[in-house]
């Protein structure tokens, strides 16, 4: 996506509905958005997704927002490792397991 401001709550939810174990959204540094508030909008949507995932039993911890600048390649990799570690600890998305049983 050209900007995290384009991330919709539905994009995140549908990823989990289709079995994603985790989703992380990486936007520019807050205050540095080319479109002024894109990354702030994304943060709100990630928070909305967290609340919903908690309520439906998937777990809000599976979605997270990160901010970094385009020059921070190593940090991007660090976030990827952090997220992978967290999701591995949490185990698979329960929806995926339920889908497997239903099939």
């Amino acid at each position, binding site marked *: 996506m050209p900007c995290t401001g384009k991330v919709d709550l*539905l994009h995140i*939810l549908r990823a989990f*509905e289709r079995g994603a174990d985790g989703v992380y959204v990486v936007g520019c540094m807050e205050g540095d958005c080319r479109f002024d508030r894109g990354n702030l909008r994304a943060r709100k949507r990630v928070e909305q997704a967290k609340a919903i*995932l908690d*309520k439906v*039993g*998937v777990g809000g911890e599976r979605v997270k927002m990160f901010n970094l600048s385009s020059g921070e390649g190593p940090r991007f990799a660090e976030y990827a490792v952090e997220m992978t570690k967290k999701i591995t600890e949490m185990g698979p998305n329960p*929806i995926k397991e*339920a889908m497997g049983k*239903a099939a």
Partner: protein
Amino acid sequence: MIVANKKPIEEIIEMVKGYRKILIAGCNECVTVCEAGGKKEVGVLASSMRMFFMNEGLKTEIDEITLERQCDHEYLEELRNSIDQYEAVVSLACGVGVQFMAEKYFATHVYPGVNTCFMGVTEERGVWSERCQGCGKCILDRTAGICPISRCAKRLLNGPCGGSTKGKCEISKDLDCAWQLIIDRLKELGRLDEYEEIAPIKDWSTERAGGPRKVVREDVRQ
């Protein structure tokens, strides 16, 4: 517009958890503008409910539709041929739409997905406030276009009460005193002399106090 607020997902799930085929019906009008019951909210609710039921091991089919309006026969008729296949419908329209759906499809279980709040305006995205109570006898001509029925906590007709302090109402420091707003605007318009005129006793029979209301217009009726 009619302003509504989303019901918590868990409340909606509790209403319909016994059904295995559910339609979520949004409305393209007021509830879309106030982001409570439009196409997007239908999608979010449907996705959330699918995940919940799947996680609970309850095979449940959830379909989505968003009608142009739910307060008119012609748009609700679009459901005529498909509604019988659903065990329940969650309507994200205002209370008017939910009721009209229930009236029209008498044998269908219809549940509300939003809390209908008031007739109001969008102050800014995410902030809506009341402007009209539909009293049936508009007096905005005498109050500089600011309604004391909907915006004064006591619905006073002849100036502010003693609870008006520095332009704010005593019930909340965030709430403007409607009569202060009226006086300020009358002054701005050079019509402050109108403030001295005593308002006649209001006929409340056209308000909700007179029971459920109806407008019949023979000039347009078919």
